[in-house]
């Protein structure tokens, strides 16, 4: 099955200050997103995430390389009719929510009863059915973001491209949107999710790509990335924490990590010391730890924020 979204060795450079300075936003960037997955797209500010998304949507032209979305070259208007897009810092015309969603639906070739019913359905899906007649200018930023998501969903897209979709949402709305994304995936659609909320990405994404300074630095299944495979965590009782370097004690149990190669000897040592092994599991890293590692940033320097 051909990829839904495909970047092929794409580079993008901007001219700044009347062309005197060139800024490289993306460099030899290649990526394939397969149908039916939720794909997480991560990177610090200025990494090139939004540039990559804007290239896919045809808002920009690449300096080198090419890409395809739903089998069509980037920028093809027919392909966009099968795509839903939510921009970072959503900006919408000021009019009643339902009218606005219908306007965007009509721009995606929906009409008549179907357009009307889809507009209602998506507003209900994002929890704004009671506010459908209110002008979006009077909405909070979180509510506007939900209207933005509704307009992205109105055409029942095969590919949903979301740039920071939950940044302004409260925890309840975030949970709702998370389950909405999972239901979109379960319906066989693809979600391309750029977010700086790593915990969200960890929860919903099947695969993730990490971008740093315009280059792809990590790509893989979320479950595999989180599971290092290099270290095992051993939890034991009846021993002292001081017996093992780096061990910590809590609730009567001692917890420590050892390289896979030393797992057997560590277990034997626990037993030799008269201890009882409670569990042995591969060490799991959080996406945040992996992110900081691959971007070479210290926690205090890390700026997983808007832009990118």
């Amino acid at each position, binding site marked *: 099955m051909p990829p839904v979204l495909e970047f092929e060795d794409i580079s993008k450079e901007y001219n700044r200050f009347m062309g005197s300075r060139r800024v490289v936003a993306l460099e030899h960037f290649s990526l394939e997103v397969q149908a039916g997955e939720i794909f997480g797209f991560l990177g610090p500010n200025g990494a090139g995430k939004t540039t990559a998304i804007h290239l896919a*949507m045809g808002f920009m032209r690449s300096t080198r390389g090419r890409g395809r979305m739903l089998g069509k070259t980037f920028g093809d*208007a027919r392909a966009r*009719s099968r795509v839903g897009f939510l*921009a970072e810092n*959503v*900006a919408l*015309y000021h009019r009643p929510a339902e009218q606005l969603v219908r*306007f965007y639906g009509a721009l995606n070739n929906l009409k008549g009863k179907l357009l009307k019913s889809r507009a209602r359905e998506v507003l209900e899906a994002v929890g704004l059915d009671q506010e459908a007649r209110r002008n979006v200018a009077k909405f909070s930023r979180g509510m506007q973001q939900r209207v933005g998501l509704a307009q992205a969903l109105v055409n029942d897209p095969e590919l949903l491209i979301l740039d920071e979709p939950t940044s302004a949402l409260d925890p309840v709305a975030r949970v709702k949107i998370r389950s909405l994304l999972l239901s979109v995936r379960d319906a066989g659609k693809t979600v391309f999710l750029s977010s700086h909320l790593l915990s969200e990405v960890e929860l919903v994404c099947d695969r993730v790509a990490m971008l740093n300074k315009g280059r792809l630095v990590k790509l893989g299944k979320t479950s595999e990335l989180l599971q290092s495979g290099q270290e095992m965590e051993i939890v034991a009782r009846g021993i002292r924490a001081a017996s093992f370097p780096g061990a910590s004690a809590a609730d009567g149990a001692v917890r420590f990590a050892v390289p896979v190669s030393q797992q057997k000897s560590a277990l034997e040592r626990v037993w030799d010391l008269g201890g009882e092994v409670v569990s042995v599991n591969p060490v799991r890293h959080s996406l945040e730890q992996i992110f900081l590692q691959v971007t070479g940033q210290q926690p205090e320097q890390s700026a997983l924020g808007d832009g990118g």
Partner: protein
Amino acid sequence: MRHIALIAINFVREQRWPILVLMSWVGLLAIMGLFINLRTARDDVLFIFKQLGVYGIAFAVFFGASAIHNDRKTRRILAVLSKSVGRRQYISGLLAGILIATGMYSFAMGVTGTWVLRGSHFSASHIWLLMACLVLACLLAATVSVLFSTFMNPLFATLGTAVLLGVPALAGRQLGSWWAHAIPAYSLLELLLETAVGETLRFPWGLAALAAGETILFWLFAAWIFERRDIAVAVD
């Protein structure tokens, strides 16, 4: 066509306040018509009527020069162009919106002018021919300003439009009328500005065809440039 109509109607809706301001001047002319004595103040009324024509052109240029910039600056353009809308359709929608706005204005001006200038040997057909010329001039001027706005900010786009439309008009005064017809926005407006009571106007088919042809060319050129522009970068 549906996309163009949707964008055009959306443009008119977004620009409803400037359009209302524009219309209020026509309203003032209508109010004047209620109270003046046409026999003594006919020339004053005619002067104001001509002035309204100039306002129409000016607004068409301002609408054209700022339309893309406003949508880019507010980032609203992203949601529109993320749909099944081509760049050429987007430009066409904006121009259609400006055409609707200036068409409404010219229609209101025509109705008001016909009523206010009744009984002054100024025929209704004469007024409506002038309004048709005004609409064509507005559309041509707006298309030129949209063309400039695809790669300039609104201030420079307005200045560029003024130069491109003004130079032929000035050249026409120095070198002969042929030069003034090179980009005939001013020539069409001049028909309104130079009109006099008792005059019979023959519709300038040649100028109208030239204006329509140039409008199409400038529109295609604007779309060609806009299709090659990165729209998601800072506009200032």
